[in-house]
């Protein structure tokens, strides 16, 4: 019988109930009583710090007051007015570093108003009403191409469609949603919410979605510029950084993003194999998501290794605590030196890092971790920037509301330089680029 201690990479380490429990909603929706109790804690601050901390500047005190006043649907509208992906952001935003981190009650009591969960309460209720809360303006006859159906592309497309423009979204993968569909831990957005949300957003009308269209292969920027009045690029980061150590081409060494995507698309989690010993290299959200989900799939030992100190990890303290609670061991200050094994990985060798004159360098002290599976999560890269675009630090250079170096081409989301690589940041950039595109097209 297969269990957590079964050697190798095998499926079915847990019972059906364990899988269901492990991958269910991590924070279930508030019931109305919970929502009222949580909403009552909001002070309706003047020029509220939570709004300032939100990349999409949702009027948080207003929407919470609307919940207090018994109109969660109106609260939902307040949220969507600023952030059409408010439902997803309520689930995946690192609120502890954004709105809730800025909440004055965090300062006062170390216990912020639960803004994220209240946002979900409001957005879920408005979405459950069916239909779509916005109407399209009269058609402008203008056509805009959007590359990538992720958060940036969807936010941009919705805002443009609302203004009356016709939008075509070109998406490389089978399903829309981008990282919402392929890249976020399953327990943060279970029950097919990502697809449900895309469908709801498309309810505005005027948006055509075309799948299997990869920029540079099926379409070109020049081609799009010829066919459309404006172009928005929101294709995210398609490439990943390599480890660059000996043996990193051994079997069962994978990119964490592929593992996460596979898990998100898995129909039956019990059929998804996972190692007994899993090692994840990296210190960001992708590393945390891969590590935690490996544990939730039944891996006995999961270790996350990051080359610098904990304070430098881009994953928040909250996420790291969550990983630790899930049973992930976190090692900091160690860098991979070699992947050992006979064909497939069996051990990963690390050196404790030392700060030298030329930056971080491996020290003399070494250790090895047993590994059936090794996940790389050391950053993603722009996979082949379109011809003619200025690239800066490996990402598309933009100015203002996402203007690129090419006329009538805008960009936003993870593929651009600037802003944190968060869903909510991508939404803000897509939305703001749309406003700029609209002004330009109608000016």
């Amino acid at each position, binding site marked *: 019988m297969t269990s957590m201690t079964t050697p190798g990479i095998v499926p079915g380490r847990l019972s059906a109930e364990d899988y269901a429990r492990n991958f269910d909603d991590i924070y279930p929706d508030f019931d109305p009583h919970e929502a*009222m*109790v949580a909403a*009552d*804690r909001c*002070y*309706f*601050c*003047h*020029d*509220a*710090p939570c709004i300032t901390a939100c990349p999409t500047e949702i009027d948080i005190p207003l929407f919470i007051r609307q919940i207090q006043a018994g109109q969660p649907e109106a609260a939902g509208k307040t949220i969507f007015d600023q952030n059409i992906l408010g439902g997803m952001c309520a689930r995946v935003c690192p609120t502890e570093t954004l709105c809730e981190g800025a909440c*004055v*009650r965090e*300062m*006062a009591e170390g216990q912020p108003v639960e803004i994220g969960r209240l946002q979900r309460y409001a957005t879920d209720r408005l979405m459950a009403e069916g239909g779509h809360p916005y109407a399209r303006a009269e058609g402008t006859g203008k056509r805009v191409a959007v590359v990538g159906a992720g958060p940036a592309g969807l936010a941009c497309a919705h805002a443009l469609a609302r203004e009356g423009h016709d939008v075509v979204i070109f998406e490389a993968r089978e399903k829309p949603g981008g990282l919402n569909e392929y890249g976020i831990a399953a327990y943060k957005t279970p029950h097919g919410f990502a697809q449900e949300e895309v469908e709801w957003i498309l309810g505005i009308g005027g948006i055509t979605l075309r799948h299997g269209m990869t920029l540079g292969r099926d379409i070109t920027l020049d081609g799009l510029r010829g066919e459309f009045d404006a172009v928005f690029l929101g294709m995210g980061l398609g490439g990943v950084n390599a480890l660059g150590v000996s043996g990193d081409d051994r079997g069962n060494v994978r990119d964490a993003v592929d593992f996460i995507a596979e898990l998100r698309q898995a129909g039956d989690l019990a059929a998804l194999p996972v190692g007994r010993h899993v090692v994840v290299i990296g210190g960001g959200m992708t590393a945390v998501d891969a590590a935690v989900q490996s544990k939730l799939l039944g891996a006995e030992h999961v270790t996350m290794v990051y080359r610098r100190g904990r304070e430098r990890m881009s994953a928040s303290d909250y996420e790291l605590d969550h990983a630790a609670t899930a049973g992930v061991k976190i090692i900091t200050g160690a860098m991979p030196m070699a992947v050992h094994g006979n064909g497939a990985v069996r051990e990963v060798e690390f050196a404790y890092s030392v700060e030298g004159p030329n930056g971080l360098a491996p020290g003399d002290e070494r250790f090895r971790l047993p590994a059936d599976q090794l996940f790389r999560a050391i950053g993603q890269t722009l996979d082949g920037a379109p011809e003619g675009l200025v690239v800066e630090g490996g990402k598309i250079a933009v100015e203002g509301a996402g203007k690129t170096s090419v006329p009538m081409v805008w960009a936003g989301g993870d593929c651009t330089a600037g802003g944190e690589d968060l869903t909510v940041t991508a939404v803000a950039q897509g939305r703001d680029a749309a406003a700029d595109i609209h002004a330009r097209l109608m000016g």
Partner: protein
Amino acid sequence: MADLTSEFLGIKSPNPFWLASAPPTDKEYNVVRAFKAGWGGVVWKTLGAEGPPIVNVNGPRYGAVWGADRRLLGLNNIELITDRPLEANLREIKQVKRDWPDRAMVVSLMVPCDEESWKAILKRVEDTEADGVELNFGCPHGMSERGMGSAVGQVPEYIEMVTRWVKTHSRMPCIVKLTPNITDIRKPAEAAKRGGADAVSLINTISSITSVDLDNFSPEPSIDGKGAHGGYCGPAVKPIALNMVAEIARDPALADLPISGIGGVTTWRDAAEFLALGAGNVQVCTAAMTYGFGIIKELTAGLSLYLDQKGMTLEQLQGRAVPNVTDWQYLNLNYVTKARIDQDLCIKCGRCFAACEDTSHQAISMSPDRVFDVIDEECVACNLCVNVCPVENCITMERLPAGVVDPRTGDTVSDDHGDWTSHPNNPMARAAE
């Protein structure tokens, strides 16, 4: 532990907390539970005249107003006087008084406005050996439509007349319960005194509609789509009650009239305030109806601790604030204060700024990093910032010492008393010169 033993009109009770005449005192079962919990006394729920018992509505009787976290701030009711047979009530009153001789047992009464009715009921109450009676001239709903309750309490002549009947036909101490649904509380109190009342108790409930159902447009509590005004009580009415108690207590013509304070007493602090404003004891209802009889432990322990901390007796507390209740015209206009914000306590919510900037005197500044400061040149010391701040003692009012120039007026602060009666802008003051 300070001694809380109380004597009101010669009626002794182990503490000054009585349960007011209301649903909690409608029958033996409740009252015994209250006495077991430690309540000092009860005013038994109002008895009516002999005959078929009163009927109540069979739908909801209460409506409410809530604060944050659904904390009950105000309650209204459309319940009438006791709907149990007179016999049953009298039998239970007698039994409870016999079983709990150290507790105060006062019986609330409301019968038609004729001498015979009062004479009849008084005889029967005396037989119970209760300690006294309270005349319900206060209930604003239901019974008032039948010429009783506040219909009597709103006409001083009726108060005087009925009180006189009661004092003529009974030896029992008589407390007249006043309705706040009038313009000047001193008039009914004077009438009660003229009629021979031994004390007044106040306030009874305030005529109210708590809310409207916005689907069927019925006032709440809704009875088959209709609503009638009820009587409002609870923490929300305390300020009204305190003022009315003080108005009587500071009236020289009424100064010797004992007062039983009623209206939103929820914690020991509320009770201490009523006592300080001249009440001889307090009656409690809504707090008990909200939290149960167990609150008596906090009320008694809290009042006792407070008296210990102040080194005061219960008697010394009573009326202590009365000399400080005055008229606006006597308030010292040379008392100049400014708001002060404790930056260590400030949580940067900005509510003081919004309140002052939008609705008051633009006397609070806000820096880009959310530091809030008082602009003394603009601050009139209105206290709104103190009141809207969610953190207690974060914003306080500090007095400018004499000799300092108030940057708002440019005037040097004087330590002389100076009020409106002598102010140069007061034409009456000039006329007097």
